[in-house]
């Protein structure tokens, strides 16, 4: 089934937040923010702004009726800076005016006085000063200390990994309107409607039942609207409550880039030990996560870095430690992969270092150490239904890795200043929120008396196609035509206490709840059919009722009408919680993931060694989808994710200066892939497996895992660079921008 939103998307008819036609009297809000990364906030003078025609009010911390606090995991993040400024771009207040333009002009008139304090942008420096967001975490398996002695080869190194701007094309925004009795309706471009609701209640000092959050769809999220959509929604709710008028805020791109957090940059140290036959016997790593100025989701991201520190490899002795370091950057946040990609990058760097030092192809080391059923992850979960070797072998054979390597070798021999590089990238990614309590969802299904069906769940549609998958589930369970089912907006009045749509788990969790709701409705309708329509074995296909294979004269509409007349409940609200999973955070052991997703990719790049530029010729992927319930959507997720991953490893460079100011603050300076910079070819093969019971209809989660194929981009380029400038030691410093490539190509020449 093609994405059910596609028709409206291509016609410009889909409604995003800023497309809601304004209610009469709507005012517009704009945040004003800190022009410095760390300081005491001495004085804010808004008088000039307030005197401008069209400016209605300026709100700051003192106007907050409840708590000035939006931190989710840890209460360490004020909505508006009060006494101290902790990052450049930290909101200090909002201007509310009759137009966005007046807001922007008024912002230039606001005077902020402050006394500067020392700025930290480097996580290692924060660590050295013991500025940590939360206590350090570590996972252990076996005993690394005694294992080093058994290793034939031991290598150590340092790795730098930069962050990544989400660059959802729709910027952050929210729109609030008062209802009666002090309750508020907020349209929010958020992945987490409940988080928005809860935080508004806290800041505005009203109960959650007075806050209705409604989300139709997002113009991209990628994790950037999981936690960080909340602040803007709270701001407009606050203004609406004060002014009793509708208030809208949609961030300008440069404001969005300056004020919001990104994928976490990490600095890390590794030590890897191998046997003479290239088995990894021991692995030790220390991660310094650049959390930014407040916790946001950093502790959870930090944990997932540890979960995925050994990627798709079995290592018997592991000791990995991670520090969430508090710096003066905007609070970094969720981004597709959620810390996992950074964890994986470090062990891939360690393998690369071993490979270069020993003259053994990295692929040989990678292959030698892939996970098997029965192996233990460092967090105690036992590997089962493992597809790591299967995916690798299928990739190696199906795409003929040997001949690719040979072709590249020959090419490099014959060309002096154009070089090719190839890398293989296996992946293994755990599916579930690692915070076990978040793994639940609900679905509400109404069958109306005309036979039409409406579905609400906690899942937010942001392009990943979850609404299409939900519709497929309802259609399959009820047998109605796709046109008879409507997937409604995500609304906190219809579905309460939701987890954000994140962790690739939206379709699994909400889909399972929807299956349960449909099943209950089906059972009631079956009974009606048996007792009143004389159909003993009900089946519905395209709205026609069948008894076994026998077509009847009855339609879905007849059945619903009958049930309605008989006062049968045609609504169902179902709750699903992932079974089996558990995790003891103290011990760092348990079974946190419902299942894992596996795959392998071969990436080929050509580097222009005269100019330091490069282009990816081909990315070939074998991916474990289980039994895909929608290949159009799943392939789209794979292609999009791998390009986003390559972007992160190559072009996308976030630069903060020493004062903590974002230098890459616009699309003119922060470059994501365009239509010309993507690989010339992306080939995707699906691994044929039975799928997993805990995956929705055995169709495995697909949002995040394929992003990590992009890691191979770094190593493919590195291999090409080494072919031009052999025998040099290069830093592991992602992304591999054309600048770093050129510098490495001519290092020591």
């Amino acid at each position, binding site marked *: 089934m093609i994405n059910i939103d596609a028709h409206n998307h291509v016609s410009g008819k889909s409604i995003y937040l800023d497309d809601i036609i304004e209610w009469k009297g709507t005012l517009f809000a704009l945040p004003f923010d800190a022009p410095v990364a760390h300081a005491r906030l001495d004085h804010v003078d808004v008088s000039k702004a307030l005197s401008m025609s069209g400016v209605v009010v300026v709100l700051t911390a003192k106007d907050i009726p409840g708590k000035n606090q939006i931190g989710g995991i840890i209460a360490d993040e004020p909505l508006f800076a009060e006494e101290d400024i902790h990052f450049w771009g930290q909101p200090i207040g909002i201007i509310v005016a009759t137009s966005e333009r007046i807001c922007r002009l008024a912002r230039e008139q606001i005077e902020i006085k402050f006394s500067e304090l020392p700025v930290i942008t480097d996580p290692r420096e924060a660590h050295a000063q013991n500025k940590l967001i939360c206590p350090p975490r570590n996972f252990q398996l076996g005993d690394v200390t005694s294992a080093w002695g058994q290793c034939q080869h031991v290598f150590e190194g340092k790795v730098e990994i930069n962050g990544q701007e989400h660059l959802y094309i729709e910027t952050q925004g929210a729109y609030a309107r008062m209802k009666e009795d002090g309750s508020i309706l907020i349209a929010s471009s958020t992945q987490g409607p409940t988080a928005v609701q809860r935080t508004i209640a806290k800041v505005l000092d009203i109960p959650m039942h007075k806050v209705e959050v409604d989300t139709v769809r997002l*113009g991209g999220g990628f994790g950037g609207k999981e936690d960080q959509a909340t602040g803007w929604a709270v701001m407009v709710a606050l203004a609406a409550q004060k002014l009793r008028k509708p208030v809208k805020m949609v961030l300008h791109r440069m404001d969005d880039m300056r004020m919001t957090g990104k994928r976490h940059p990490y600095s890390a140290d590794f030590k890897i030990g191998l046997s003479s036959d290239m088995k990894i016997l021991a692995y030790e790593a220390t991660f310094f996560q650049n959390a930014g100025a407040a916790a946001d989701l950093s502790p959870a991201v930090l944990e997932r870095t540890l979960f995925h520190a050994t990627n798709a490899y079995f290592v018997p002795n592991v000791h990995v430690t991670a520090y969430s370091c508090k710096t003066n950057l905007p609070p970094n946040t969720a981004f597709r992969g959620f810390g996992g990609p950074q964890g994986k990058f470090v062990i891939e760097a360690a393998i690369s270092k071993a490979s270069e030092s020993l003259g053994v192809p990295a692929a040989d080391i990678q292959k030698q150490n892939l996970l098997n059923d029965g192996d233990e992850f460092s967090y105690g979960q036992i590997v089962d239904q493992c597809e790591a070797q299967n995916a690798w072998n299928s990739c190696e054979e199906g795409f003929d890795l040997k001949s690719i390597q040979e072709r590249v070798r020959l090419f490099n021999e014959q060309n002096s200043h154009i070089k090719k590089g190839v890398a293989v990238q296996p992946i293994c990614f755990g599916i579930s929120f690692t915070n076990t309590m978040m793994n639940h969802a609900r679905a509400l299904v109404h069958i109306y008396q005309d036979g039409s069906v409406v579905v609400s769940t906690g899942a937010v549609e942001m392009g990943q196609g979850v609404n299409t998958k939900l519709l497929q589930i309802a259609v399959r369970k009820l047998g109605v035509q796709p046109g008879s089912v409507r997937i409604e907006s995500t609304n906190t009045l219809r579905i309460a206490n939701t987890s954000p749509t994140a962790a690739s788990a939206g379709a699994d969790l909400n889909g399972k709840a929807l299956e349960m709701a449909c099943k209950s409705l089906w059972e009631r309708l079956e009974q009606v059919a048996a007792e009143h329509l004389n159909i003993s074995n009900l089946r519905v296909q395209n709205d026609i009722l069948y008894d076994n294979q026998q077509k009847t004269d009855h339609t879905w509409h007849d059945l619903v009408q009958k049930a309605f007349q008989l006062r049968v409940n045609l609504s169902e609200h179902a709750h699903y919680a992932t079974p089996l999973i558990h995790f003891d955070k103290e011990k760092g052991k348990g079974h946190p993931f419902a299942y894992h997703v596996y795959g392998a990719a071969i990436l080929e790049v050509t580097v222009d060694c005269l100019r330091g530029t490069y282009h990816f010729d081909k990315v070939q992927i074998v991916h474990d989808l289980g039994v895909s319930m929608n290949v159009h959507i799943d392939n789209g997720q794979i292609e999009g994710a791998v390009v986003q991953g390559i972007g992160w490893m190559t072009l996308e460079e976030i630069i903060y200066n020493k004062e903590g100011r974002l230098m890459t603050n616009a699309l003119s300076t922060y470059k994501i892939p365009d239509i010309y910079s993507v690989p010339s070819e992306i080939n995707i093969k699906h691994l044929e497996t039975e799928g997993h019971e805990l995956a929705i209809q055995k169709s495995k989660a697909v949002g995040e895992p394929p992003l990590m194929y992009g890691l191979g981009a770094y190593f493919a380029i590195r291999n090409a660079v080494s072919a031009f400038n052999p025998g040099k030691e290069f830093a592991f410093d992602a992304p591999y921008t054309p600048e770093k490539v050129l510098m490495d190509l001519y290092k020591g020449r």
Partner: protein
Amino acid sequence: MIEFILNNETVRTDLSPGMTLLDYVRYEANLRGTKIGCREGDCGACTVLLGSIRDQKLKYISATSCLTPLANVHGMHVVTIEGLNTEGGLNKVQKAFVDCSGTQCGFCTPGFVTSLCGYALNCENANAMDAVGSMDGNICRCTGYKSIERAAAVVADQLQEKDHNLPLKWLAGEEFIPAWFEDIPERLGQFSAELPVSGEKAIGGGTDLFVHHQDVLQEAPLKFLFGKKDLTGIEFSDTECIIHASSTAADLIDNARLQSVFPGWHSYMKLVSSTPIRNIGTVAGNLVNASPIGDLTILLLGLNARIVLLDNEDLTRTLPLKEFYLDYKKLDKMESEIISRIIFDLPDMDSHFHFEKVCKRKYLDIASVNTAIQIRMSEGRIIKEIHCSMGGVGPIPLYLKNTVSFMTGKVLSSELIRESVDILQSEIKPISDARGSADYKRLLASQLFFSHFIELFPEEIKGEELL
């Protein structure tokens, strides 16, 4: 009063001529299909089509509405995504996007569809590569573009049959566009000629000034020069090329004479910004913007161009472009002067021209370093005349006067190039910024200087001898 056709409606408005077309379309006309992604022309979510009669034919260009002041669409046909929806439902381009799963979150989609519809309207020899190229100004964060490439290939294939004598009729019949497009050429005739030029601050396509100064410009007294007949067009004499100031980068890339005079012309010009920006960005705008990395500036400096400045009294003066730039964003130009023409000598048979540009992303990016070179050779491999420019290596677009004067009259050899690069290094002063560190730009400057010779004289100059 500004008049234009918006989709199928004629619009006459007294709103500020400096209001962006994007704001007009979304918030005055309430057509919300056109999206806001960046307001700086770098994402294409706000792409619209602008139709006007050129050479007796209705031509459409794609444009970023976020940087286009209302005044610039006076007398034109403005088409948004809503104006591309056909009565039967989806048009062919939209259908291809749906069938190929070329849309995920959908926010960028109207921009992509609009760009590709523009291609369908304009193309003469449809092919997948050019169809993809029409979307080079559109950014998508979800799909990874492969599905969009597939949609473009489908569309290009369907366009093979296009009737170029009656394109609108054919396109409407094949459901690429609504039928009412066929009346547009006639309807455009109703509009009064150009808006009278008044105001103080000269503005061309808006592609630079509207990035940062939109809020102020909306109410400022602007002197709109975009599309003015006496300021557009590219002419040739026997020895010179004369570019009228308001000609766009697209006029340059499409010019058949320039394409034949400079073999690499099309590929050089493709490196300049993106299709929708080239469609509206003017040559003079690029020059007066005085960015030290302006691509057209560097290109014209390499051609040793001259500019003709015109003041309020209609007096003109001519000066070499290399003398125009005094310091960072400081020009040898009075406030009242505008550039009216840019002139350069056409190369002879012994001349060679080349342009190089490196940035993070090959297309739709601003250079870390860009450079152009023109060399006239005489017998015995002697360099008779040479001009070389370089951007991103100082406060102004740099004409490498010491380097070229050192090379003039000498025999071209790898040794000479290596000696010259030392002089080049002594006359550049790059700084570290978002486009690269100073060290990188120095290295890149040498590499691109080498590239000129490796590309222009592959027989004589070998990469191995330089690197």
